[in-house]
């Protein structure tokens, strides 16, 4: 047997030993109950690397690591597909010891309201909202429509005269429905994909109205796009001239939070520890700067109020879905 082979066998043997007796944590064998976290924390993200949910999770993980807020690192696990349900199911099935958590947002409410799957917010333990972002409603800059009032007047005078780029059952659709109901107008729909597709439809004059996230809008603005209204609860620094729906007197607010979730009945200590760490992260200058640069809103909401707010939004969404006859 060569030297290399024998080394390999020893290593394999050690691994086998661990596999047979996974509790054998040599450093803490004397303690009755090790302090959370005892191993790296897996943060599941239901999207490909690179989007907002993924980037924020990675920034948090980096901040936590660099400032030694936890004794173990956070590892981002990307599990894209099925509108993030794949990742959600993994966390729902995990041990509720705090070592498997989920970073998601209010798409969870939409899929539930639409009846796409059965995953419900109350299947989870809510750890809290780590900031969030809101979208804007836009038209072409040369459309002659200079304010939401212009748009509402035009649509009231000529109902269904403007085409709205949406995907059925997506945020653009449900926000449009809410605003239309509040202001009493009607548009026609043209089915569309993601942000870039809505932009192509808008600029190519195949659509007249499109919704973009605030950060998308900042990027697209130079192409000749104009925002008429912001769906957030209050104006944000990067869009000082865009009025909010609330200011204009319409009940249509959408503040999509970065929601941190764990499996149901999660260990209380672990949940409290994670919440406090996340709160610390979003209070840091780095994170606040990043949020501002992306036209996102940096704030923290504790687990329970976050769940309450979400359930209220869910009820509202269910009403819309029923009225529009969208669900199953």
């Amino acid at each position, binding site marked *: 047997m060569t030297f290399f082979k024998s080394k390999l066998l020893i290593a394999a043997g050690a691994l086998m030993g661990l596999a047979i007796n996974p509790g054998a944590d040599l450093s803490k064998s004397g303690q009755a109950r090790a302090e959370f976290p005892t191993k790296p924390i897996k943060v599941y993200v239901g999207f*490909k*690397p*690179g*989007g907002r949910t993924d980037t924020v999770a990675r920034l948090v993980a980096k901040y936590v690591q660099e400032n030694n807020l936890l004794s173990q690192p956070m590892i981002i*696990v*990307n*599990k*894209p*597909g*099925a*509108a993030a*349900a*794949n990742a959600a*199911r993994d966390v729902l099935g995990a041990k509720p010891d705090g070592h498997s958590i989920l970073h998601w947002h209010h798409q969870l409410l939409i899929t539930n309201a*639409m*009846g*796409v*799957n059965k995953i419900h917010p109350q299947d989870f333990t809510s750890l809290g909202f780590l900031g969030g972002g809101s979208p804007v409603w836009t038209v072409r800059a040369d459309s002659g429509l200079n304010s939401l009032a212009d748009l509402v007047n035009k649509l009231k005078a000529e109902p269904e005269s403007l*085409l709205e780029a949406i*995907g*059925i*059952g*997506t945020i653009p*659709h449900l926000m449009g429905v809410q605003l239309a109901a509040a202001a009493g107008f009607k548009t*026609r*729909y*043209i*089915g*569309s*994909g*993601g*942000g*870039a*597709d809505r*932009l*192509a*439809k808008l*600029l*190519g*004059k*195949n659509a007249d109205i499109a919704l973009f996230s605030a950060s998308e809008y900042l*990027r*697209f603005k130079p*192409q000749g796009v104009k925002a008429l209204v912001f769906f957030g609860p209050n104006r944000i620094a990067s869009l000082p001239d865009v009025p909010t729906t609330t200011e204009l007197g319409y009940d249509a607010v959408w503040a999509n939070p970065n929601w941190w979730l764990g499996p149901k009945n999660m260990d209380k200590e672990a949940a409290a520890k994670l919440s406090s760490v996340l709160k610390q992260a979003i209070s840091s200058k780095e994170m606040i700067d990043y949020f501002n640069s992306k036209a996102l809103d940096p704030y923290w909401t504790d687990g329970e109020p976050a769940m309450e707010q979400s359930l209220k939004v869910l009820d509202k969404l269910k009403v819309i879905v029923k009225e529009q006859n*969208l669900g*199953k």
Partner: protein
Amino acid sequence: MEHLLNSFSLLLQPLPLALLFIGVASGIIIGAIPGLTATMLITLTLPLTFFMESVNAITMLVGMYVGGISGGLIAATLLRMPGTPASIMTTFDGYPLSQQGHSARALGLGITASFIGGLISWAFLAVLSPPLANLALTFGPWEYFTLVLMALVMLASLSQGSMIKALMAAALGMMVHLPGVDPSLGQMRLTFNLDNLEGGLSLLPVLIGAFAVSQIFKDIIVIDREPPPVHLDRKGMVLSLADIKKYAGNFFRSSCIGTWVGLLPGIGANIAAMLSYTTAKNVSKEPEKFGTGHEHGIVAAETANNAAVGGALIPLITMGIPGSVVDAILIGALIMHNLEPGPLLFTTNPEIAYGVITAYLIGNIIMFGIMMFSVVHIARMLYIPRAYLLATILLFCIIGVFAVANRFFDVWIMLLFGVIGFIMERTKMPLGPFVIGFVLSPIAEMQLRSGLMATDGSLLPLFTRPFAATFFAISVLSLLWPLFIEWKNKNRAGRH
């Protein structure tokens, strides 16, 4: 112009250049080995590019595309085994010329022709793309739907063998896309209550299965077959100026044919080479020499198949419609990198659109350098034992597919489509239409239903919008043309 220059300075940095070099070199090697294709290499590399900057990733993949199509000529010339399907026509004259003791000359002709074809089609790519993208911006759902329809039908009617089988393969590909979220209603369909099917069948498991795994199954059967040894030196490989002059007309004609065929949605390098070869033979004063080691034959085939690569990139970056099967996979790559391929690519992500154009030019130059200097060494790669090669590739398939979504379900899907791909090949159902159908049917469905949503269910725009009507008419004609030819032939046979 400014963007183009920017793009050059971006790509001429050490890292992108190194990646481009790796891409071209690996493309040439994989393209050279019969049984391994550029398509397979690019699908397998996709998961690896996941963690790279988008520009670097796309640059490397374009390099592989250029290298893969070019590398195929080595085995085609030396062994009469096309390294990739695109070099089938090269075997007709390359191999005889090589057998007459002029291997170096045959390879030199092929390599230079590939290079010139690449350069000329690059000029078309760089000049035509920006205005075409502007035109495409005015395209609405009906134009896109008919474009995709045209791609599917043309691919089916122009691919070799039975058109019915090709259409069946396309339909099968379209069916594979169906499970998952209905894009118009936002509801699940055909998921049979399986959680794993809610995201639909993802691109990579299906593609890697159909292309790489099925190819491995196919190669295992003939694993003992070893190519005969060949002797090769480099003397006579470099073409003289007189040679270039002599073939100037052929270079230009074949480049135009190649670019044009590449530009047409769906069909790519292999059909370009065939068409160009046939044309060269038809216009030649000595057509009887074709197939006996005639230099014009090598030039026509190799110029066109490389020019097709550049041509096929045009619809890819201007409309998000693939010009060939490899481009369908490149679209997948763009989507994986959160880029939406379409007419706005030039405005929202100019670095990508111009990056593709620049990478294509630099890739061709690198390809020429590598091939001219090391073709002798690359030829030795043909003798790597298959057993090691196939085992390694299968391992890469599994790792790659698993890594994308951290899900073992995808590995089973990959193996399933490996078997399906293998059965399709055995029953002579072409894989090209299958892949194009799978990649394009989401676009077709989305656009058609989106158009219907806007017109309240009326199909009238298919006939009233000029571009849509033209594309629709071409689709119908491509479908009917082969039937008409068959009918005519039968009639003629009947009269005799």
